[in-house]
């Protein structure tokens, strides 16, 4: 039986999208979904109950689905890129400090009482985004030795700076009087913003970051042989590694600024794709992107439904469901040399 990686993964994503759109406080049957879609194509006007459904769709479900889809894609794609760059199966998008920097920025912004305006609502995401990028820049600068940035230095600087940022974040949280619950929810992955604004705000950064990553498959393959051999085969190693690192960090920073810190997607989705479809990064990157989008959508559906009408932070679901699932996949893997 011929294995068709893209077909299977895209079908998985499609299923996840349909579930995400259909399930919520108001269940929209897939049949009605189809009717609305056809109606849109024919520019028809709707009568009830389709009219309410269409309103929920455009105002709430679709923007949320697209936001989660993009976030999952960013996490899956940059997770694969980080694992390739650092040649380490434990690497995830938060390795060099994006999470701790974003967390610090977000919590700082939460301690300020912003007005309920557009800019007030954008304050936390903007602060998270800036915090994430600033951290990566600092870590990168700290790790630099002359003209090169050794991998080990990057990881060490990332861990050190991450601990530092987390400590300050925890202190701020302990000192807060009302914002503690909100901060904890954000730090475990909660997208509280509705509408299309978050999607539009994220889109340019994701387009650039993920666009670069999708073109980097061959370079990542070469890097698996080590910097020396990659250079001897013709790759300008330092430039390419820096570019991929920045692109992955940009995509991750944009993703976490609205969705909070969601773990496991960036770590596990690339491994599952590698186990099932091989280690060629030209394929692994796009597959991790699509798989990450689908996985996060499913996790979000679960997070919304399990304790309805309350919403669990989706990061808890990815951890609780993701870890056992990955262990199960790992045990079933027949070939040992998949890494």
């Amino acid at each position: 039986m011929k294995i068709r990686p893209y077909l299977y993964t895209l079908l998985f994503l499609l299923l996840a999208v349909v579930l995400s759109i259909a399930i919520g406080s108001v269940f929209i049957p897939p049949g009605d979904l189809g009717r609305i879609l056809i109606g849109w194509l024919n520019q028809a006007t709707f009568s009830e109950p389709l009219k309410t459904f269409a309103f929920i769709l455009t105002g709430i479900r679709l923007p949320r689905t697209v936001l989660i889809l993009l976030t999952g894609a960013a996490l899956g794609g940059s997770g694969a890129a980080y694992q390739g760059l650092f040649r380490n199966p434990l690497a995830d998008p938060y390795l060099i400090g994006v999470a701790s920097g974003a967390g610090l920025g977000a919590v700082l912004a939460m301690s300020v009482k912003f007005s309920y305006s557009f800019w007030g609502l954008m304050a936390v995401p903007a602060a998270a985004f800036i915090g994430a990028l600033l951290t990566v820049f600092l870590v990168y600068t700290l790790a630099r030795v002359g003209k090169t940035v050794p991998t080990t230095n990057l990881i060490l600087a990332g861990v050190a700076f991450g601990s530092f940022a987390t400590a300050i974040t925890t202190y701020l949280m302990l000192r807060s009087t009302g914002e503690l619950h909100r901060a904890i929810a954000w730090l475990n992955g909660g997208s509280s913003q509705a509408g299309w604004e978050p999607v539009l705000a994220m889109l340019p950064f994701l387009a650039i970051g993920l666009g670069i990553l999708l073109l980097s498959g061959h370079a990542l393959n070469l890097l698996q042989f080590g910097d020396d051999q990659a250079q001897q085969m013709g790759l300008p190693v330092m430039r390419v590694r820096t570019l991929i690192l920045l692109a992955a960090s940009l995509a991750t920073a944009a993703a976490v600024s609205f969705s909070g810190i969601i773990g496991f997607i960036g770590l596990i989705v690339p491994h599952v794709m590698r186990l099932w479809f091989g280690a060629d990064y030209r394929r692994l990157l796009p597959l991790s992107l699509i798989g990450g989008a689908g996985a996060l959508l499913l996790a979000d559906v679960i997070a919304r439904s399990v304790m309805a009408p309350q919403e669990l932070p989706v990061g808890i679901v990815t951890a609780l469901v993701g870890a056992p699932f990955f262990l199960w996949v790992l045990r079933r893997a027949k070939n040992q040399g998949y890494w």
Partner: protein
Amino acid sequence: MLKIEGLSVSYGPRRVLYNISLEVISGEVLALIGPNGAGKSTLVRAVSGVIPVESGGIRSDDINRPSVNLLSLSPMQRARSLAVVPQAASMPPAFTVWETVLMGRTPHLNFLGQVSAKDEAIARLALQKVDALDLSERRVGELSGGEQQRVLLARALAQSTPILLLDEPTSNLDLHYQVSFMETVSALAHQDKLAVLVALHDLNLAARYADRMALLVDGEIKATGTPRQVLTPELISMAYHLPVQVIPHPYADAPLVLPVNN
């Protein structure tokens, strides 16, 4: 041919290579020998552009083409003139042999790494030359050391360069693979008119398969010439701090180096 002129390399404040001058002619195998720490690997890395060069020049000279200054080239351009066969240590285990050899075509591909039928034909030919075509679909992690080393040679051959550098390729191979590997390298150099510089630690292996040799001690070239000229008791004893005798090989046209016990 490869021309190294007055090359000096330092690791920070420490000078490791002093004024190295060497020529490797197309169609010959030049063996670089010397004790541990002499700088053999450093020389290979410096010529291939992985470590910076303090002073001196590296040129590629061909009869039909103008002389190329390899130091001024980008990694991509240099990789079209020069290919390196490293030691087969800690290779990424998940790639297949075929995928690995195809990566040698990188300097001739676009940055997406898209291969054409011509690239595949070259890769297939490279695998044939090292007698590893039947290993194509195997994962590299499953191969023996000798097989992995052949795959790395095929990858370098697929790069289609006039110059080949090998950094102690036989260090982890058993006797059978040491001999068969050097047989292949020597045959390829002569048939395809490649300029081959191979760093070796086994003196007698080098004597059997090298057309010329260069002795590197403490970062300096102490002698170059045919194996008979370089493998003299005086030079080798001085270089390795060990008394040796050199006798004619019983049945091969090469000297044989024997350590002397007291």
